[in-house]
């Protein structure tokens, strides 16, 4: 049982999370009341910082299930012990991401319209089904794992969740892949890139949550499972880097895309800095050093690497989403156009405080769901110390 001091600390933590959520809701109200005028968004950059937060959380919600999948689908016992936490984090991140996404809508009050009027050619409409489905399937999966008489159904449920989350992340990638109008998007490479990125971002979130839970309970995870999870994160970070490299390389090969690539990779102000320093160096190369260097095997280095991967993912998404919109439409290829409406010009964007607060509010939602559920349901992974069973890793 929990002692009095621990309980007090827990309630203080929940109160802090609640405060962040409350501030996020106030920010959402202000943005709803005043519109784009109090944000950095405009008619050229219509998706801003809230979308960076939302898409990170939605993509990570899919990727964090990787731990459960390795346990259920590939039968690794040590990962199975972590599957309930993996499922919980998925639900929490998805709830946080969707909260931000919905509150950023111009008419959040018309959510019922989005749920009752489906345009089957719209990937947004598909995603309504995919997101709702993930909630349901992961909840059922958790039930099969936590209710003893349902345990035989755990593996099939794990398979369904595994397939569903791959489809879901494909759907998230398709939001951009289907856009022929923008030079940054409209590539079949985007869905697989998002899937691999989801593995890395989700596992980084899992590492952080797991480390926090172990530290809170005064325990340490087994070195073997930590080694395996550290290597897995490194492989996913490398995989993401490979897809991002392939995406930019193919773009550079198309003459019509070189202007856009020059903007993102070299001359586009903040965007090249965020890409090279934020995503490539801080968010990929440095974590790889922490994850693979033989002298850096302490859990704290893995935590730092995970934090850097998450920071890098924000830098990547900022460049991808906002940089992709900042580059002007290709209306007159080969000509420089201008108008009273900003045509032909690089659009400017400075995220405002309410946008950040709404984003952090979404993270607060994910944190609250995780903290309360993990305590109530006692989801701390219990590693098996027995040598014979450890060999089953």
């Amino acid at each position, binding site marked *: 049982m929990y002692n009095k001091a621990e309980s007090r600390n827990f309630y203080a933590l929940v109160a802090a999370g609640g405060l962040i959520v409350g501030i996020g809701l106030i920010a959402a109200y202000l943005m709803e009341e005043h519109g784009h005028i109090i944000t950095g968004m405009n*008619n050229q950059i219509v998706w801003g910082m809230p979308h960076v937060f939302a898409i990170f959380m939605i993509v990570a919600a899919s990727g964090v299930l990787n731990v459960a999948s390795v346990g259920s689908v590939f039968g690794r016992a040590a990962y199975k012990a972590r599957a309930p936490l993996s499922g919980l984090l998925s639900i929490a991140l998805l709830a946080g991401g969707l909260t931000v996404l919905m509150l950023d809508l111009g008419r959040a009050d*018309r959510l019922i319209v989005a749920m009752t009027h489906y345009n089957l050619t719209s990937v*947004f409409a598909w995603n309504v089904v995919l997101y709702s489905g993930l909630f349901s399937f992961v909840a059922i999966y958790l039930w099969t794992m936590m209710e003893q008489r349902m345990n035989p159904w755990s593996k099939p449920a794990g398979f369904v969740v595994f397939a569903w989350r791959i489809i879901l992340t494909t759907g998230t990638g398709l939001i951009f892949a289907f*856009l022929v109008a923008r030079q940054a998007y409209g590539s079949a490479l985007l869905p697989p890139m998002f899937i691999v990125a989801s593995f890395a971002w989700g596992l980084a979130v899992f590492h952080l949550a797991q480390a926090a839970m172990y530290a809170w309970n005064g325990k340490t995870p087994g070195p073997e499972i930590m080694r395996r999870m550290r290597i897995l994160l490194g492989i996913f970070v490398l995989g993401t880097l490979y897809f991002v490299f392939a995406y930019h390389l193919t773009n550079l090969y198309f003459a019509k895309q070189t202007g856009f690539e020059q903007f993102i990779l070299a001359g586009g102000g903040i965007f090249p800095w965020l890409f090279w320093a934020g995503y490539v160096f801080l968010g990929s190369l440095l974590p790889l050093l922490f994850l693979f260097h033989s002298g850096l095997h302490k859990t704290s280095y893995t935590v730092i690497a995970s934090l850097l991967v998450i920071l890098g993912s924000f830098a990547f998404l900022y460049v991808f989403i906002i940089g992709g919109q900042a580059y002007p439409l290709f209306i007159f290829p080969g000509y420089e156009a201008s108008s009273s409406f900003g045509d032909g010009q690089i659009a400017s964007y400075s995220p405002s405080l309410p946008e950040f607060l709404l984003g952090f509010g979404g993270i607060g939602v994910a944190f609250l769901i995780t903290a309360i559920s993990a305590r109530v349901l006692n989801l701390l992974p219990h590693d098996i110390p027995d040598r014979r069973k450890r060999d089953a890793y």
Partner: protein
Amino acid sequence: MARWGMVIDLDKCTGCQACSTACQMENNRLPGENYQDVLYYTEGKQPTPVLKWFPRPCMHCEEPSCMHVCPTKATFKTEDGVVLIDWNKCIGCKYCMIACPYGVRFYTDEKPLVEPNIKDVYPGEGDLSWNPPYKGPQQDNAHGVGIQPHGVVSKCTFCYHKISKAPKGIADLSNDDAANREFVPACVRTCAPTARYFGDLDNPKSNVSRLISDKRGVRLLDHTGNKPQVYYLSGGAGPAVPSGRGGANKA
């Protein structure tokens, strides 16, 4: 049923922006946020650059990207080929704004492009974003006509409040036809050099069909596959739209 379309003769267009102003007045647009805009670009290099212009309304595409991506079917196509927004269904996700290759969609409650912010001078009542003193009598949210409400996207409607009342079977809506002049879209109605034509693209006898056929009308960014219903004409040396011209003239 007609399939309405527009033809713009670039040789006749003087870039005067009367079309933009007429559109702004007709549709209660905010300064700088015109449904119909004129783009400027430069042909040739120093010392002999030539400033050119290019009017750009919504293209009312046959295969509109904006309609395909709209999750709630708020953007829809009428039987007579006009792409409209049902403001009662728009949830303000702005996906259509990213999907449109022509950049002709507008979101409400933006920073003013011209000071002072006229929305503060004439604040809106209820759901409407502002309350212009010269507004027309029409407010049809289901067809995206009138003053833009809060939190939704708007665009050119081909002046749907006018053309939808035109007699059935009519081939062209032209200033020359006195009996039907009131149904002519504002930009066509006001164009002093008569560079704009509006009519039924499916009617081979319509003036717009003949112009497209006789003068080799072309569409902007045709390679996207959106199939715009706005055609451009040019009797000059090169194709009508800049992307089709030779590289020698590029800026």
